């Protein structure tokens, strides 16, 4: 199978993730979309690793997973704290920096 198809899939997943981040208001959904974008990037790395025949891309994919796991821990904690204090998980409500 043509390796380019994986790249097309990666681009599609990334676009879905990006659109989700921009248009959705629920913080959990936004967060999931970010994960989707990260994994789209991972797919690209792995694909290029396959195309080039070396392991660099796969190693970076592992790095990304570690970073994503950490990010989930911190990010979910923040979202839960914001929800507790503001009774809302909408990211549009958390626009305090403007004022």
């Amino acid at each position, binding site marked *: 199978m043509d390796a380019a198809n994986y790249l097309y899939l990666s681009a599609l997943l990334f676009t879905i993730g990006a659109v989700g*981040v921009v248009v959705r208001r629920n913080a959990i959904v936004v967060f999931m979309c970010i994960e989707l974008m990260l994994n789209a990037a991972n797919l690209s790395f792995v694909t290029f690793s396959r195309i080039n025949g070396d392991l660099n891309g796969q190693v970076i994919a592992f790095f990304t997973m570690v970073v994503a796991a950490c990010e989930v821990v911190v990010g979910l904690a923040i979202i839960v704290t914001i929800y507790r204090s503001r009774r809302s998980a909408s990211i549009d409500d958390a626009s305090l920096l403007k004022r």
Partner: protein
Amino acid sequence: MMTSTSLVYLIALPLAGSAILLLAGRRSDKWGHLLATALSASSFVVGLYQLSLMLGRSTGERPITQKLFEWISVGSFKIDASLMLDQLSICFVLLITGVGTLIHIYSISYMSHDPDRRRFFAFLNLFIAAMLLLVLGDSYLNLYVGWEGVGLASYLLIGFWNQKPAYATASKKAFVMNRVGDMGLSFAIMIAFATMGTVSFSGVKEAVDHTSTAALTGIGIMLLVAATGKSAQFPLQAWLGDAMAGPTPVSALIHAATMVTAGVYLITRSNFIFDAAPTAQLLVVIVGAITLMFGALIGTAKDDIKKALAASTMSQIGYMILGAGLGPVGYAFAIMHLLTHGFFKAGMFLGAGSVMHGMNDEVNMRKYGALRKFMPITFATFGLGYLAILGVPPFAGFYSKDMIIETAFNSGGAKGIILGCVTLLGAGITAFYMTRVMILTFTGKSRWDDEAHPHESPWLMWLPMAILAIGSLTSGYLLSHGDALVNWLSPLFENHAEHAELLSPLVVSGLALAMVAIGIAIAFVKYSRNEVAAVAPTDVSIFTTIARQDLLQDRFNEAVFMQPGQVLTAVLVKTDEAVIDGAVRGVGRIALGSGSALRGVQTGFVRSYAALILIGAVALVAAIWVVTQ
């Protein structure tokens, strides 16, 4: 030149007194005046000791110096803070410390009811120290420090009773007008340094020969400006009348005997410059001639006894400046008149203070009258000063003033005749206004209010007056006997060729005495025969009105300098606000405007930021794609 190690004590003693009294504060209230007087007197003793040493040396070795410390050292430019005592300085040192000590003694009693007497004595000591530095400095820069110091002391003492706004204004006026003159002195120093590379008296004297006349004229004119400011000469004379706001001992010491004569000292000290710059020397004579008439005319119209004496001081210093402007023949006579004037004018000011002391500080002579019976000692001492200033033989003024008149007549050509006539006329007017002061104050019927209880002053006050009166009687004879002062000072000045005599001394004295007699006669007819009004009459001629307003000098200054100056500052303030502040504020406003325009982007919504990042990333990738294609 010989060096000495004891000159510094002349200055250090009164300076220490001033520092102690100011730092110790109220704790020294009880003994401060005694300490200040003792230190001033000890400075006088040091001066006498130096005089005795100087008399013991031969003529060529009389000047001595003392280097205190290296003051400024920038590259090849070196200035030492050093003192120099020569035949001219010692005259001033003895005048300053001698008259100064007498006035300290007088002030103990005169200021005894003042709660701030200690502060007054601290300032008096500060003045003595600064004035001694002025006459002992061996370079123009050292002189300048003393010059500023006496200006400061004068300011502090004129405004001593600064709780009265008018007095505070008077001190400010004196300070500001003095600043104009000080600017002249600093310009003179700058020109001297630029053209000669030195500012010491001896260095400048040597450099005069190979310096252009234009530069010398520039220095001379700037020195003259300095002298007009400090010595209240035309056109910077307006401050002296208002300076009478200070306590009377201050008027006697600073504004009659010593500080206001600093201009004469400066010109005499710079004789080598003026001798080489005839234009500047001519200007000196003109300034002196104008001021001596100016002061005399103001003196005729003043009812305030201190202001009448101040106008007289202005006029007498005009004589000195004129004498100093006549060149080598006149310097010694200018100094002689300065010394005799120091005695009789200080004596008369102290007399005026004594009268005020007995009359509840009333200064209006129209409220005096018949005080001769109540204040016999004041009358006697004031009378001796009066005879001295008139130039009646054998009193001091006869010797010193007649010498200036004679020298003026004999200075040659039309200039000599004009100057001679001016000085002669000035002598007549002096006789008129001084006789007027005598008649209004001491003779006639009493015109004072019922509250006044005129009485003679205590001995602490009349003793200095008596000593100064003896000086008024004898100093002229002592200084001119066998040309004592002229010979004493002659090593300092260029030797001069004798001028052809236009008028002999005897003729000049006769003419002067005739003018004086006329002046006295007019004053007697005007004030002794008729009743003197207790309130100044208002239906007087235009000339009297103008003279009462100091010959409109304040109005002139206001119209020519103050108002255009205010317009200029207003324009400058406007320019500052519109252009300079405007530019700064404009930059701020641009930053502010662009900031608020950009602020619209900052919505606070995370999603919009994410969208912007996305758009940016897409745009970046697109750009790279376009470029690499």
